[in-house]
Each structure stands twice: as C-alpha cells, then as structure tokens.
C-alpha cells in the first residue's frame, strides 16, 4: 500500500499528514497501513474516506496523549493547592519550594507523604486535585474526541453504502448527521 501511495501523487496528496514535532512518523505510517489493510479502499472516493478515518484516529491518539500530559502537568499546582489548605500558617515561599522539590527530591517526597497522611490523605489526592483543576480543558478535549468518534462511524457507514450501491442523498440524513455535528461544535444541545 505504501508504494501505491508513494507512486501516485493524487493519492499522496490525499494521505498527506500534518505531524507535530513530538509525533512519530513511523507510528503514523503503521496506523495508516493497518487501517488501509482493513478497509482496502477500491476507488478514489474510498481513499478519501479512508484518509479521513486515519486523520481522525491520529488526532484521537494525539488528544488522548495530551489529556494525560495535561493532568500530569497540573500535579504541581495541585500539590501547592493542597499544601496551602493543609499548612495554612506556612509561608507561600516555603510551600512553593516544597511543591517544587516534591517531584525531584525523595526526602521531600517522604516528608510531604507524612504531612498528607497526618490529614488522612495520600498521593492519590494530588492526582484527584490535578484532575479537578484540568476538568474544563479535559471536557473540551472530550467533546472533540466524541465528535471524531461519531465522524468515524458515519464514514464507515458511508463506505459500506457506497460499496453496496446504496448511497443516499445527504438531505435524507442531514438532520441527524452533519447538522448534529455543527450543533455539537457550537456547544448546542
């Protein structure tokens, strides 16, 4: 499939990828080949749908990775917030310093573990607080993930209909498909 795409400029343009610096070209090619192996597109329209599925699946993987990184990076402010709650008499500078060193110094980590235990908390509470602080961003990303999922399912349906010669004019499903997607995008119902 690789050679077919590389030797055909039209297909190469359809499958052109927009990768970020941290994205792996190798992983993208592997995902593309796996999807093409399953779908086995027969004509140019099917190739366009297949490319859309690949694009959506890659964005889904990217967003899932970003979600976990966003929660991880929120751990430091989350710990700071917890320490402010627990150690109300401590100076802000000291709390910042503790929160900074928690992630690099084993001694400080043990010390903070002991403070948390004194108040009936564990390190899991830091993760919970980090998750709470990232909720609005995660919700936004989840909306996009849901949209990409429904788009993929619809394309698979289109592909099946196309192969069976059952393609229907879109005004028949516009109310349920594209309009719903746009409503979803606009934050409506």
């Amino acid at each position: 499939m690789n050679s077919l795409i590389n030797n055909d400029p039209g297909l190469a343009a359809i499958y052109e990828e927009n990768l970020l610096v941290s994205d792996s070209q190798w992983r993208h090619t592997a995902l593309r080949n796996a999807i093409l192996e399953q779908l086995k597109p027969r004509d140019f329209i099917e190739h366009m749908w297949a490319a859309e599925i690949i694009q959506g699946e890659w964005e889904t993987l990217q967003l899932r990775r970003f979600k976990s990184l966003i929660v991880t990076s929120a751990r430091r402010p989350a710990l700071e917030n917890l320490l402010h709650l627990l150690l109300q008499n401590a100076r802000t500078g000291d709390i910042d310093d503790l929160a900074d060193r928690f992630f690099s110094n084993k001694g400080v980590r043990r010390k903070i573990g002991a403070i948390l235990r004194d108040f009936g908390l564990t390190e899991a509470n830091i993760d919970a607080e980090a998750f709470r602080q990232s909720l609005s961003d995660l919700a936004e990303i989840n909306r996009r993930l849901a949209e990409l999922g429904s788009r993929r399912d619809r394309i698979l349906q289109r592909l099946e209909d196309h192969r069976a010669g059952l393609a229907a004019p879109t005004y028949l499903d516009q109310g349920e498909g594209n309009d719903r997607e746009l409503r979803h995008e606009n934050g409506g119902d």
Partner: protein
Amino acid sequence: MASARQIAANRKNARKSTGPRTRAGKQRASRNAHRHGLSTQTDDGENCEAVESLVRRIAHGSTDQDLLHWAAVAARAHLELARIRQVKCDIVGRMARFGALDKAALFRNRAAAMRHLKSLFNKPLSKLKPVDPSSIPSEAEREAEAVQRLLPELRKLNRYEARAYAGRDRALCEVSLRVSKRDSQLD
C-alpha cells in the same frame, strides 16, 4: 412574502438609488463582497490546478455535468479542510516553540527592555541558579501545554473544519449516488 405590487414598488424605489454617496459609505460598500478568515476561497493558479486534478480523480473519467459539479464541490471542500488542518498544526507548533502566537509585550518600551538586558549582563555568573534538567519540559509536554492554552482558538478552527467537512461529506455522497446510478444503468 411580498406581493407582486410590493416587489414592483421595491424595484422602482431601488432604481432611484445610485449607491453610497459619502466617502465612508463607498468605503463600506467596497467591502461588501469581502469574506474573512479561513472561509476565503483562494483562486490562485496552483489551487485551480489542485481542484481540477482532484475533480478528475473523484469523477473517475465521467463527463456527467451533475457528477462533475459535485466532484468540484468535494474537491474545493477537501482543499479547505487540508488548509484548516495545516493552520491547526502550525499554531500548535508555534505556541509550543515560542510560548505565544503574538509578540509578547513584556516591557513597556524599548528602553525598559534594554535596562532589563543590561541588569542581566551585569549580574555575576555565580549568582545564576543552575537549571534542573528534570524541570525542562519535553517536546510532547510543550505541545500538550500549547494545546491547552490554544483550546479557545482550536474550538473556532474546529467549527470551520466541521463546516468544510460537512460540505465535502455531502458532495462525496452525491458523487457516490450518481456513480452507483450510472453503474446500475450499465448493468
């Protein structure tokens, strides 16, 4: 709905109008056909060529005018989608690299910036804190932060993208419908 008499009256009144008269009015009217943002169609030679090439591939040698029309709609929407996705990728990359999309106004003026630079250069090197390697974020972490900060912009771009996607989806379905009709007639 306007009656025939009302329509005729409107037309008669409209003929009396000679368009905007003031300079401001003329300037405003000159922007009537202006489209902003990513919905602007670029009709440069390269784009026309790309559309034509895509139309030929989507229509698969058909000369049916209706099918060619929908193939052209799909091709234009496809190129718009590609453009929007390129923009998304670019802004995330730029934000990850520079931490901002626009020039950051860190200092009030050039003199303040120069004072800050001079104070940095005059500081003895021993007073500078060594950088903790674990505190330097990885490329993936920078991109995740960029996406997080760009969520409002990305939401707007996704709206553009959804519009272009819906247009292409509809056009491809119309092409598929005509192709299957043609094939069934041949059978």
